């Protein structure tokens, strides 16, 4: 019964984000999809791994593959007899816990009101994953790490923001939200900004007499922008920020439980639910274009012992079947650092145990994008309790180590001195640097594709998935101009199952999904452990 069909509407090679979105969308509207990955795991360049698999993956021999992770280096803290552990952790202990880590190749956050969240809800794919609201947004003000006031309450309890500043900030934010370019109402216009769209956002803020403090918060922490950002871009960024805040938590961001590698898999699950066939770890020998009897182009693919044909084929960036001369790609510089204390130490972590997700955007002079830092603790199910996973990313310019140096040297330390008062700089217990292929250059590469073989880009250097989703939609509409993009999947009670005479008693009904993860996993585990012991006694 395991005979694989010989013909599909679509073959997708690679299980990265874009490929998985296309596969799900295509399967969702009733087309047949074969989704394969030459890797044994889901996600390609978007995957998450436990510590051991992460290291194996980074160091694996990729042969003559051109599009691959490059310049990998790794380093452990040198534990000695005098310094055999830091806060109770050493190399052996970290490795022994490493099985439960989920380390992202490309970490991302999602705006609560962003395109990914919107898509997950509108397609009902949200039932496959859960998120944690980012606990805190940090910024670097006058060389020191500081907590960004997110909500109105935060702003008003912030000591280093004066009352006048608070009023200015609220007024400015309100104006940003209400500003409409096409507004005709004269009296409204007077209240609003008189500023050209392509003027610089920072100049607008200066015009509005915002203080340097406020400009810093808005520009770097809320908008993740820089001094070159235009009014139009800045306005859009601050609106996204403001419409996202307070929706699920006190910051505007969400992080997926178990890491970002879950996200492409959610789309794969939907694809499978609608009949998509999945096969990982199969080597593809050959892809050819052929013509059928009526002269239509078909794609013929040989893999394993199978020969399959399909009307269309989509290749991911890491599939090795993309013409890289025609589709030159960029790299993202990455660092993954493990520490045993949170960034910024007790000065910014007094209100919590550092158990959540923390974001810090660090602008770098002379570079259009700064360094994005995402710190994960155990509540994300990505790392053990007591350890912190620090992800650094920026577009690759001079190599990962050199690109990320400005952050690492300022906020982390390589040595350890228990005597020192200053706990703001965590000691690096483990670090690895690498460069990972990201987006295909040129924003219009999608529109130049005419099939039947299409290629997908890797990640963009954006915090969220907005651009990836925009491109996936664009590609899908090129492939299937008459089909809807990921309409809402039915709830279980809406499905009528094709048995003729079954006697259902209305037992299928789904309301609001209750949360499925216990509030405090450790506690649950402890209780269960106790019970296990009782059982065996």
């Amino acid at each position, binding site marked *: 019964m*395991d005979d694989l069909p010989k013909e599909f509407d679509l073959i997708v090679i690679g299980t990265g984000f874009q490929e998985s979105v296309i596969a799900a969308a295509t399967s969702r509207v009733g087309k047949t999809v074969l989704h394969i990955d030459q890797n044994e795991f*889901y996600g390609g360049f978007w995957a998450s791994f436990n510590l051991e698999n992460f290291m194996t993956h980074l160091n694996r021999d990729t042969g003559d593959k051109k599009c691959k992770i490059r310049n990998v280096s790794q380093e452990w803290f040198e534990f000695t007899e005098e310094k055999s552990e830091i806060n109770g952790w050493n190399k052996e202990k970290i490795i022994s816990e490493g*099985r439960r880590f989920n380390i992202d190749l490309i970490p991302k956050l999602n705006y609560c009101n962003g395109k990914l969240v919107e898509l*997950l*809800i509108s397609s009902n794919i*949200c*039932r496959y*994953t*859960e998120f*944690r*609201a980012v606990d805190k947004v940090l910024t670097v003000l006058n060389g020191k790490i500081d907590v960004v006031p997110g*909500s*109105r*309450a935060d702003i008003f309890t912030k000591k280093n923001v004066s009352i006048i500043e608070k009023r200015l900030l609220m007024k400015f934010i*309100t104006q940003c*939200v209400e500003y409409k370019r096409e507004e005709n109402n004269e009296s409204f216009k007077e209240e609003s900004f008189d500023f050209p769209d392509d003027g610089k956002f920072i100049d607008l803020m200066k015009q509005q007499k915002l203080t340097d403090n406020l400009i810093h918060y808005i520009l770097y922490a809320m908008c993740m922008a820089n001094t070159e950002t235009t009014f139009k871009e800045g306005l859009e960024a601050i609106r996204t920020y*403001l*419409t*996202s*805040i*307070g*929706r*699920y*938590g006190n910051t505007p961001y969400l992080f997926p439980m*178990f890491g970002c590698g*879950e996200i492409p*898999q*959610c789309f794969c*699950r939907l694809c*499978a*639910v609608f*009949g998509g*066939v*999945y*096969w*990982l770890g*199969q080597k593809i020998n050959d892809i050819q274009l052929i013509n059928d009897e009526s002269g239509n182009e078909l794609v013929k693919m040989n893999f394993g012992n199978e020969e399959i044909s399909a009307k269309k084929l989509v290749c991911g960036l890491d599939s090795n079947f993309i013409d890289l001369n025609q589709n030159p790609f960029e790299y993202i510089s990455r660092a993954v650092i493990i520490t045993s204390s949170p960034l910024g130490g007790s000065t910014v972590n007094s209100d919590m145990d550092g158990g*959540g997700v923390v974001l810090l955007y660090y602008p770098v002079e002379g570079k259009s994008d700064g360094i994005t830092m995402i710190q994960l603790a155990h509540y994300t199910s990505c790392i053990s309790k007591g350890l912190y996973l620090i992800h650094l990313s920026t577009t690759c310019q001079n190599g990962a180590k050199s690109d990320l140096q400005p952050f690492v040297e300022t906020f982390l330390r390589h040595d350890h001195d228990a005597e020192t008062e200053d706990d703001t700089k965590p000691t690096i217990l483990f670090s690895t640097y690498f460069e990972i292929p990201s987006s295909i250059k040129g924003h219009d590469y999608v529109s130049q594709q005419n099939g039947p073989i299409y290629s997908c880009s890797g990640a963009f250097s954006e915090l969220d998935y907005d651009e990836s989703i925009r491109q996936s939609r664009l590609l899908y509409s090129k492939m299937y101009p008459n089909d809807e993009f990921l309409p809402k*999947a*039915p709830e*279980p*009670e809406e499905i009528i*199952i*094709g*048995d003729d005479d*079954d*006697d*259902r008693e209305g*037992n299928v009904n789904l*309301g*609001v*999904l*209750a*949360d*499925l993860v216990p*509030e405090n996993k450790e*506690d649950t585990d402890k*209780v*269960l*452990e106790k019970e296990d012991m009782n059982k065996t006694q």
Partner: protein
Amino acid sequence: MEDYKFLFKVVLIGNSGVGKTCLVRRFTQGVFPKGQGATIGVDFMIKTLEIENSTGQSENVKLQIWDTAGQERFRSITQSYYRSAHALILVYDISCQPTFDALSDWIREIQEYANPKVLKILVGNKTDRDDREIPVRVGEEFAKAHDMYFLETSSKQGENVEKLFYEIAAELIEQARRQKGGLSRTHHSSVTNLGMKSNISNFQSNCCSGSGSNNN
């Protein structure tokens, strides 16, 4: 609010053709599907059970039973399928040795991706068949060695199917009771399920124009 006190996620795994989908359909709909292929678009099935607790009162429990969506066929189940499952049913076909031999591979997957404390049940299905290849004792021993509950079922005749799910529900309730607070349904702020409509609110009410409703 719907009338149930607990909601549990139960996932099924095991080789293709061992009867996972039939088990779910027999239990949730009381039917034994004649053919394959009608399940396109089905993510999971729901059934609300009435369970008598230790104090003699009956409580409504909702089981959300997830099927593999065919991804087991070429060993390509997404890790996210295992996440946050409360119970895991590993199924083999008592008349098909290879489905039993594959159990160790499945155990490895469970160890890798599922919560270490997940409730695990080994099920030998198709007891209606007269060409049994796996003796009951062999199944029992495997289950014992891997810290699993064990049951043999027949989806075709309905044998032990109700029992399987009722026992899972009862055990999960007991587990939930032992936790502080007791109820798995209590909402908490640290994990966000996007599907929960109550989460959606307008930013203006809590950020700009000032009621601060979310900041209390």
